[in-house]
């Protein structure tokens, strides 16, 4: 199969390169903050006794940085790269691309300043104060206009499956962000949500769950559908499966939010709805996993040598795991044990480090040599990154599963007289401490891999120009 020429002058690859650099920069920052949090939970003096560095303020900094800065920029890079090539046209508007890139970075910087200062709306994953929320809406709409403008001027008729997944993100995130942040400003930094009490909680978790669904799941599947077959040079296993599982996901995800509010004041029937829609999500989620893994039929020999495909295989596997675990945690009796414990944290990072992170790394290692028109600086270094990250994830999630189940069982343990076996909360904290140290080690391994990626990309981008066609990463190994 012949390589399609990459840096065709038609395409706007400068914007893509900008987003790649931003992804790597914010990825290191966000994961460093994650590692600091992990240290603080294991060893409290790391809070430093200062309000700005305390766990409560750094935690939202971590979640916002890894979700909106690391994952967000990676999605924009991957989408802009693949969209142009799939539709055989340059991005619709250079102006909008510039507004989108710089606007998004300005939002991230303002988040990085306001969150440690303690300015927050107090809604998880939507902490940012209302002026920043407005800026997000404006920049997101610039992205949406650029996206649909590009679709409108496309030079091919067919819309490849990756593009449907991207579209579901563009549309859904707009609605979610606007509705969940509806608020009445009281001052520049303070506002009151228009919803109150239980309604507010339900709207928040409708948002929270679908932010996971339409930022960390469907667009990442879109990236998989473009970058995996390109890297493996294999056709997608089943077009039909992609249609059925796409509509399954989009239709079912929206209803599953109440699984975050089990055993709360939410009416019983609404909790049931959240639970059963989560169960029904198993098959559509696994449809994506199947289509990914089966596309590799006949390409497993490449997986052995190509770190890009290794990252994809492990990413897809963790996607399958977390989308089985999630529905199990939505079952009332399981959630009664897992809720409020580190089991949730294990589940989160299975998806975040395993699925989202690994897929992004694979995509970057494939895209960077083509974007800068130079072979990857070091393939062995990329392979080392892969192993560090994989072992790091395993340490992280096994430690958190063990911690979560231990914690849940200790909370509910009673003696023969029906009295709590561990009435003092501190008993559970002490029991979890060793696992927090193990999680820190796993997290540091993952962070080290991320830094190696940054170095590898830096060396690639600054290497002398290679006039030959860009080489796929696997070829230098062979």
């Amino acid at each position: 199969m012949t390589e399609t020429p990459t840096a065709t002058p038609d395409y706007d690859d400068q914007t893509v390169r900008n987003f790649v650099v931003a992804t790597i920069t914010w990825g290191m920052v966000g994961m460093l903050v994650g590692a600091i949090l992990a240290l603080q939970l294991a060893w409290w003096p790391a809070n430093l006794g200062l309000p700005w560095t305390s766990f409560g303020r750094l935690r939202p900094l971590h979640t916002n940085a890894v979700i909106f800065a690391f994952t967000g920029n990676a999605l924009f890079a991957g989408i802009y790269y693949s969209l142009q090539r799939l539709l055989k046209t340059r991005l619709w508007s250079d102006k909008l691309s510039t507004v989108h890139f710089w606007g998004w970075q300005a939002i991230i910087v303002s988040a990085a300043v306001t969150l440690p200062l303690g300015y927050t709306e107090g809604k998880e994953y939507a902490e940012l104060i209302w002026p920043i929320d407005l800026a997000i809406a404006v920049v997101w709409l610039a992205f949406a206009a650029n996206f649909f403008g590009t679709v409108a001027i496309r030079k091919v008729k067919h819309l490849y499956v990756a593009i449907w997944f991207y579209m579901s993100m563009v549309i859904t995130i707009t609605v979610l962000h606007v509705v969940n942040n509806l608020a009445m400003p009281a001052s520049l930094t303070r506002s009151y949500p228009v919803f109150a009490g239980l309604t507010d909680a339900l709207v928040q978790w409708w948002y929270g769950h679908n932010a996971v669904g339409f930022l960390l799941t469907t667009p990442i599947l879109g990236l998989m559908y473009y970058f995996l077959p390109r890297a493996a040079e294999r056709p997608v296993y089943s077009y039909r499966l992609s249609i059925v599982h796409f509509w399954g996901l989009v239709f079912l995800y929206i209803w599953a939010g109440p699984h975050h509010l089990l055993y709360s004041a939410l009416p019983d029937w609404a909790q049931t709805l959240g639970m059963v829609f989560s169960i029904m999500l198993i098959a559509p989620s696994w449809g994506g996993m199947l289509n990914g893994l089966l596309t590799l039929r006949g390409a497993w020999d490449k997986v052995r040598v190509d770190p890009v495909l290794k990252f994809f295989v492990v990413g897809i596997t963790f996607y399958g795991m977390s989308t089985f675990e999630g529905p199990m945690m939505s079952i009332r009796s399981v959630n009664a044990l897992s809720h409020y414990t580190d089991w949730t944290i294990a589940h989160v990072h299975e998806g975040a480090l395993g699925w989202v992170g690994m897929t992004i790394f694979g995509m970057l290692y494939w895209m960077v040599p083509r974007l800068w028109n130079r072979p990857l600086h070091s393939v062995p270094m990329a392979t080392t990154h892969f192993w560090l990250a994989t072992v790091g994830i395993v340490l992280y999630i096994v430690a958190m599963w063990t911690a979560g189940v231990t914690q849940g069982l200790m909370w509910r343990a009673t003696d023969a007289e029906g009295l709590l076996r561990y009435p003092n909360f501190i008993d559970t904290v002490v029991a979890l401490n060793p696992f927090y140290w193990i999680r820190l080690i796993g997290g540091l391994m993952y962070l080290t891999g991320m830094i190696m990626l940054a170095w590898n990309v830096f060396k690639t981008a600054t290497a002398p120009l290679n006039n030959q066609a860009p080489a796929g990463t696997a070829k230098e190994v062979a």
Partner: protein
Amino acid sequence: MSGEQDRLLGHADEADGIDEYDNKLPAWWVGLFIGCIIFAVGYGLDRHFLRPTSEALEYDAEVAAAPKAASVEASITPEAVAAGKEVFMTNCVACHGADLHGGIGPNLTDETWIHGGKLTDIVTTITNGVAAKGMPTWGPVLGPKKIADVAAFVHEQGGGQ
């Protein structure tokens, strides 16, 4: 495998070189999907219509089924006071002080009682707590035996009536 397997759709020129097979949905996957839908509908019907229940009813049933601690008649014996001292030192000193002279909580050695100084009053206060003022509810934590002991100890130390 049938001849239908792995027929290319021929979209590659319209998708940056990526082609797609027209493969059928894997049968086990379809089975899984339908199975989950049947479970979902069945669970909802069962819980809300066939054998209606709710989290509140489940809670009541669990509480009714839970083992009950035998009730203990508090009385002032040397054993009870000694055992009560130990309970006090582990759970109460943070607020009432090791000498019971008070801190966050009031002095327990004087004649003044907010909630009554009879042994039975003290048992009641400790068991139920005074949530609004910051005295924890000890009933489910210590159980009747330890509460009887610590009440005996407090009664002995202070101006118990």
